[in-house]
């Protein structure tokens, strides 16, 4: 992988926490909690709901640039979400910006270099305050993980 992508930022993008989307997501993660699937707009959303930001994030908003991603060799190693208060309510308009925070290599246990990429997305509310942050660690192995 091209390690010069470290520091790349995507163009900020808008994401609306939509009621129906929250409901669909909650059902897909086996929740029957009325906070997510009950009547009326949800006062909060599931802790991993921002994983659906890809619906809003066009290619210009992706910090990967032209770095090719070989999906056969990509593993999602770690994922973290941090919130300043309750996860955003249905109806909240967020402005998100994704960046490549860190790129580093490690020697794999079975030989072959592994590249670790830490991808951070910050979500701001209308006042500009960061209300949520997503941090993903993506691992590119030197060979397909299944082989």
């Amino acid at each position, binding site marked *: 992988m091209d390690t010069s992508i470290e520091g790349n930022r995507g163009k900020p993008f808008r994401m609306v926490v939509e009621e129906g989307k929250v409901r669909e997501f909650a059902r897909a993660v086996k929740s029957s909690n009325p*906070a997510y699937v009950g009547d009326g707009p949800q006062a909060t959303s599931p802790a991993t709901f921002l994983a659906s930001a890809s*619906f809003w994030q066009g290619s210009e908003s992706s910090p990967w640039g032209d770095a090719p991603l070989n999906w056969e060799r990509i593993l999602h190693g770690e994922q973290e979400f941090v919130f300043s208060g309750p996860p955003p309510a249905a109806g909240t308009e967020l402005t998100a910006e994704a960046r490549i925070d860190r790129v580093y290599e490690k020697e794999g246990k079975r030989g072959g270099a592994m590249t670790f990429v830490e991808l951070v997305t910050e979500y701001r509310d209308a006042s500009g305050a960061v209300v949520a942050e997503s941090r993903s660690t993506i691992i590119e192995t030197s060979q397909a*993980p299944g082989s």
Partner: protein
Amino acid sequence: MELTVGAEGPTWEDGPLTVTDFVRYQGASGDMNPIHHDTGFAQKAGFPMPFAVGMRQAGVLASWAADWLGPANVRRFKVQWREQAWPGDVLTYSGAVTALREEAGQRLADIEMTVTRQTGGTHLKGWATFVVPD
């Protein structure tokens, strides 16, 4: 809510997993990586069959924790994947309080969670921080 260090949430079982479960999550999240539903693609990558979407089980774990400690109370939720989960797997979701502390006038609970396969293997480990409900 009375919480003590070592207190455990009520265990959940989820499964047997199906590719339909994976597809449902993929549709909801927008992650359409074919390795989770296209057998030909998965086999080309060296896997015997499609395997579970890691983020789906992270989400189920978050649902489990939200039912225990309250959906609006989560402030941090982190997972690390270990071994893959496969169609047919029955997964057990569990966790316990590892620390209670106070920060900026709020009572916080740190919890550690595990998703275990029926083989005893660990599918994922999780850590979360919740505001302790009154």
